[in-house]
Every structure is written in structure tokens, then in C-alpha cells.
């Protein structure tokens, strides 16, 4: 410590002001290592490791470790490890994995034979980091070292490093919501430094990310499993409700709720390929109920349920109108060999990726956290614009003759796209609307009105004639979306 006070006074001073210091927790309590540890190094006559893993923190914070392990945060690296090569390696370059993906999702830290940490994987405090001791996660992702301030971790800003930007703009969504607005105005009343931080007891001004996703509220205990209260998956091409399966060894697994729930005591394959015995299964209803109980600290029951209904309706709309049809169309194109299996070598693949991963996720997050701007303008409006003006035209161009088989039936399967078969349904939103059709008698008498009176009539005729011309039109102009949507 004497050395570090001189050589890195910043971290020494942060520790000195921390609760750790007050409790007598010093450097070696966290950094001690066994010589056999993969990343053990000698330092001033002691054996230490630079990386303090969740396992190390768990020596004192056992409950938090148990909750955190197996959570969507701890699995953040594992969840995308299959996807990373396509985006980070093919589309850009491997350097982006270290500077981009891994900084949020966590790296698989590699200790080299000479004891040094591979710079391609370290420094890293991504929340799903695979540590040299095998544990997953990084506590310092939220609890900035070496102060480990409670108040800092309770701030919405603790989440901003990763939960911002186009695909999970939760910082922006929260700030644009009423919750975020009040939080900012009432920051003084948030009691962020309190020992316990139970919503409704220790603070009532506004919720932060922590409040709803992890925090204690009334009878609801706090948890370090940040995804536990989420009924839906929102960052998938199609949202599904999910069971949360907890294994006897504490590991967790999420399963789509349209399957039968696994029974207690059955053997199940975990995400990492090993098997485990099921200890308890929480259905999406139970997960939703816990989340709603947090709301109830400040809102009425009817208010809460109705809000959740509005949110669910948006997810269902996204799924039914855009997510499922787009996924079905993509699947058809892949199966017919019209798209190569290689991702991102065709423009349509970018369009589809942005449809669900960026715009679609934004819409769903906006609805989940009550930011009308993100639900609509930054979200579902862009989903609709993309779907009708980019995705469908590009998909038709790719499908060519097969559009009638691969695309039209998908769109016709629901009522969602029926509006396109009424091209006469006028609306002044674009600044133009046809004059109301005049009676045939007077229109013939008035020379000027004649043109405007005839125009809608001609459009009706072309609409009627369309079924016969549809097939040749598709052949002649495969990119056109004119024919297939009725």
C-alpha cells in the first residue's frame, strides 16, 4: 500500500475512502492468490492475481455471487460467442472484439505461458468475462474499482457503458421516460448512499435501473440476477416468454415458455453443454409478478397491470407483424439457396439484422420502460419503415420468381398487412389528399374539376385489374412491392 500510495495514488485514495477500508478489507483480501492459480504472479513477496474475479469477491459476498452466477449478465460472453466471428471478425476485424464486443460482453481472459495476460483479452471488465479461475463475470463492471461505491452502482449511469446506443438504448429510454425525468429532478431525494436501499422505504422519489431489475422493494428481496424479473426476451428476432430454470448447483437456464416446463429433479442440458438437475422453475408469469410487485410500491394494481398489458401488446404486435414474418421470409430464402448461409454478404442481411437487432429491440425496450419516443419514433416507426421500404423490396428482389411462394403467403397469413390492399384509403398525412369524388353529372359540366374527379376513378380500375397483371409485373420488376401485399 505504501508503494501504491506513491505510484498510483488514485486507486489508493479510492480504496481509502471505501467501505472496504472501513471494514478493514485490504489489498490482499481481494488480490490474494494461490500459486497454482492460472493467473497467479509474485508481487513484493506475495502471490497475487491482478484480476479479482467474482469467485474472489464471493469469499465475502457469497449471496451476491450465487445470484450473479448463471445470470444473463454472467453469461453475456457465452450468449454471443457464436455470433462474434461474423460481425467482429468477418465484417470488421479481430481488433474490434477486444475494443468493442468484449468490453461489454466480457473477454475470455487468456493467461500466456510467461504469466502475462494476453492484451487481446485484457484489460477487460465486461460483465460476462470468463476469468482465469473459470468463474464468469466481472463485479467491477458495475462496482467501479477501487471505491466500490454503493451509490455509484445504484445510479443509472452504472449501466450506461453497455446499455446505450442503437441496440439496447436503455440509458436513452430511461432518460426519456417519466421515471428518468423525475429521477433527475429529485436526485437529492434518492438516498443513494443509504445502507439498505429498499424502494418504498429508503427512497420513493423515482426508480433507477437497479430498482426494477435488481432492487429490494417492499417484500421483494434484492437480487444480483439482473434478468430474473424479465418475462420476455427482447433482444431476439422474435420475442419469447421464458422459463427461468435454476439447477441444484445454482446454474441457470432460460427456456421458451411455449414448451412444457421441465419438472423438478429432471436432468437437463445446460447452456455450456453439461447436465444438471432442475431445482426450481420460474415461469414468465412468476417473473412478471415479481417485477410488478416493484411497481406496486408506487403505482396501483390496475395501473401496473394495464401498463404491462400495453407493453405486452407492443411485443405481440412486433412479433406478429414484423418479427415472425421477417424471420419466416429469411428462412425461406436461406432454405431455397437464394441467400448464401454466410451472414452479412448480402444487403438484405443487414436490413434484417437492423430490423430486429436495432430498431426492433429499441421499440420493445421503449415500450417496456415507458419511453413513448423510443417505442414509436426511434422504434416501431423505423421497424415499419424498414419492413415496407427496405426489407420487403430487397427480399422480393432476392426471391425473384419465388416471391409468390416465399413472401406473399407469409404476408397474407395475418391481417397485419391488409391495409396495403386499399391504396385508395386517402389520408392527408403526406400533405396531399384527393378531393372528394364529385357526382358524375356536375363533374362533366365543370371543365376544371373534370381531371381531379377522374383520377380516383382510374385508380380504382387499375386496382380491380391488378390480379391479372400481378404475375407479369413481378417478373418485369422483381424489386417492386406493388403486387404482393393484398
Amino acid at each position: 500500500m505504501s508503494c501504491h500510495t506513491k505510484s498510483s495514488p488514485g486507486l489508493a485514495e479510492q480504496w481509502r475512502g471505501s467501505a472496504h477500508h472501513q471494514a478493514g478489507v485490504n489489498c490482499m483480501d481481494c488480490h490474494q492468490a494461490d500459486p497454482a492459480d492460472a493467473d497467479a504472479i509474485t508481487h513484493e513477496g506475495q502471490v497475487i492475481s491482478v484480476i479479482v474475479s467474482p469467485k474472489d469477491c464471493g469469499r465475502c459476498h457469497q449471496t451476491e455471487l450465487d445470484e450473479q452466477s448463471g445470470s444473463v449478465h454472467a453469461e453475456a460472453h457465452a450468449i454471443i460467442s457464436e455470433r462474434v466471428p461474423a460481425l467482429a471478425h468477418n465484417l470488421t476485424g479481430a481488433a474490434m472484439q477486444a475494443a468493442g464486443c468484449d468490453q461489454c460482453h466480457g473477454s475470455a481472459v487468456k493467461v500466456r505461458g510467461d504469466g502475462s495476460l494476453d492484451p487481446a483479452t485484457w484489460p477487460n471488465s465486461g460483465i460476462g468475462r470468463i476469468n482465469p479461475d473459470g468463474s464468469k463475470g466481472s463485479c467491477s463492471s458495475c462496482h467501479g474499482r477501487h471505491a466500490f461505491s454503493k451509490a455509484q452502482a445504484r445510479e443509472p449511469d452504472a449501466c450506461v457503458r453497455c446499455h446505450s446506443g442503437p441496440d439496447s438504448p436503455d440509458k436513452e429510454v430511461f432518460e426519456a421516460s417519466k421515471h428518468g425525468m423525475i429521477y433527475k429532478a429529485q436526485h437529492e431525494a434518492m438516498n443513494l448512499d443509504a445502507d439498505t436501499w429498499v424502494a418504498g422505504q429508503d427512497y420513493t422519489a423515482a426508480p433507477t435501473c437497479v430498482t426494477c431489475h435488481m432492487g429490494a422493494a417492499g417484500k421483494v428481496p434484492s437480487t444480483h440476477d439482473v434478468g430474473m424479473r424479465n418475462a420476455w426476451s427482447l433482444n431476439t428476432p422474435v420475442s419469447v416468454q421464458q422459463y427461468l430454470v435454476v439447477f441444484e448447483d445454482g446454474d441457470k437456464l432460460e427456456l421458451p415458455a411455449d414448451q412444457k416446463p421441465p419438472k423438478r429433479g429432471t436432468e437437463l442440458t445446460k447452456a455450456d453443454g453439461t447436465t444438471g438437475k432442475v431445482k426450481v422453475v420460474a415461469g414468465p408469469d412468476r417473473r412478471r409478478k415479481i417485477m410488478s410487485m416493484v411497481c406496486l410500491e408506487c403505482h396501483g394494481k390496475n395501473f401496473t397491470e394495464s401498463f404491462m398489458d400495453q407493453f405486452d401488446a407492443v411485443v405481440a404486435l412486433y412479433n406478429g407483424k414484423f418479427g415472425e414474418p421477417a424471420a419466416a421470409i429469411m428462412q425461406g430464402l436461406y432454405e431455397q439457396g437464394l441467400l448464401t448461409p454466410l451472414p452479412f454478404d448480402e444487403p438484405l442481411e443487414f436490413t434484417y439484422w437492423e430490423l430486429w437487432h436495432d430498431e426492433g429491440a429499441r421499440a420493445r425496450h421503449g415500450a417496456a420502460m415507458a419511453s413513448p419516443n423510443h417505442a414509436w419514433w426511434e422504434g416501431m416507426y423505423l421497424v415499419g419503415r424498414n419492413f415496407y421500404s427496405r426489407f420487403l423490396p430487397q427480399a422480393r428482389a432476392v426471391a425473384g420468381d419465388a416471391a409468390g411462394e416465399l413472401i406473399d403467403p407469409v404476408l397474407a397469413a395475418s391481417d397485419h398487412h391488409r391495409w396495403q390492399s386499399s391504396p385508395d384509403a386517402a389520408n392527408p398525412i403526406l400533405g396531399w389528399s384527393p378531393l372528394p369524388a364529385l357526382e358524375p353529372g356536375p363533374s362533366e359540366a365543370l371543365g376544371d374539376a373534370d381531371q381531379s374527379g377522374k383520377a380516383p376513378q382510374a385508380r380504382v380500375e387499375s386496382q380491380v385489374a391488378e390480379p391479372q397483371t400481378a404475375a407479369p409485373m413481378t417478373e418485369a420488376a422483381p424489386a417492386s412491392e406493388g403486387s404482393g401485399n393484398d
Partner: protein
Amino acid sequence: MIKLRAPLFITRHVLFALVVGGVSGVVFMFFLIEFDHFTSSNEFCLSCHSMSYADDFYRQSVHYNSPSGVRASCGDCHVSEGIIMATYDHAVGTKDLIKQLFGPDYDDPVVNTLHLPEAAFAARDWFRKRDSATCKRCHAQEAIMGTRANTAAIHQEDAEGKTCIDCHINLVHRPVPERLTFKREAWNAMVEEEFGLEPGAAATVMGEH
């Protein structure tokens, strides 16, 4: 009047032997000085091909490339000061020559890198046993100022009871962990990756010697 006479046992033969012995003694001392000097030079050390791997890292280090132009040679660090200790070090060092001639093929970079950790451990022990004496030929602890604000204070207050090598390892040659935390499997895996060998090949190479 006192007449100075040599004692009777100083015969002509004895006198001759003394003169010849004295002269050859001086010549031998000169020879040792020159010999120690020569065998401490980079040229001599690098006359073995196996030493070129140590040289690669040395040339990247600040002990080779110092802004002031001061350059530490192999012997400056690895051979003790003073003719007696220098000669002793060289005598002990002949075991390296024997190993070079009759031991593993250290000229092979794989073999060389695989055996490097043991060499590093031995070198560190050597420094520690001598209280880092060769470091102190050039570095005076009380004169270390450093470029960072508190380097001087650290070398006064926090270095007590420690010798240079306790903190300053892996300065010049390829980094090797301390013996306590060294892991042979990890080192072997690194060498296999570096030289594009099959997993397990390093252990086979090591087993051959």
C-alpha cells in the same frame, strides 16, 4: 660497517626461481584480467548460437538502448566484479559450455525457449545471493530519481530489506514468471503456439533431454 648479505639459503637457483615465478605470476594475473575481460564480452557470449535468443530480447531492452549511451554488456550483469570472483564465475560457467556441447540442442529455438525458465530461475538466484551486486556497479539506490513523482521515495522507504532483483525481473530477457507461480504446462503451450507445434510436442521435446 654493516654489510648486507642475502641469507645463505638464497642460492642462485632460488633467486632464479623467484624471479621466474614472480614474472610468470604477474603475467598470469594479466592473463586472467584479459581472459575475464574477453569472456565477459558480448562477442564471446554470442559466439555460441544459442545465446542469440537471449541477445534478441537484450537488444530490445533499455540496458542495450539507453538514451545516454551507457550500455551494459553480458558480463556487466552476469559476471562478478574483482578478479577472484570473476574467475570463479567463469569457472562455474564452464558447465554451460559443457551443456552446450553435450546437452540438449540449445541452438534449436524451441529447445532453447523450453529450457529458458530454469536458466532464468538460476540467474535470479545468482543475483539474489550476491545482493544484486552487479546491478549496483552502475545503479546507486540512493540516486534513483525516476521520471514519476514518487519513484525516489519508493526506492528509499519501500525498498528496505529488498534487493534489486526482488522487484526488477524480466527487464532484459524474455519474460519468465517467478519460480513459485511458474506453470510448465502453460509455458509449453505458449511455445507450441508460438512455433506452430502440435499440442504435447513440447513435453516430448523436453522428455528427450
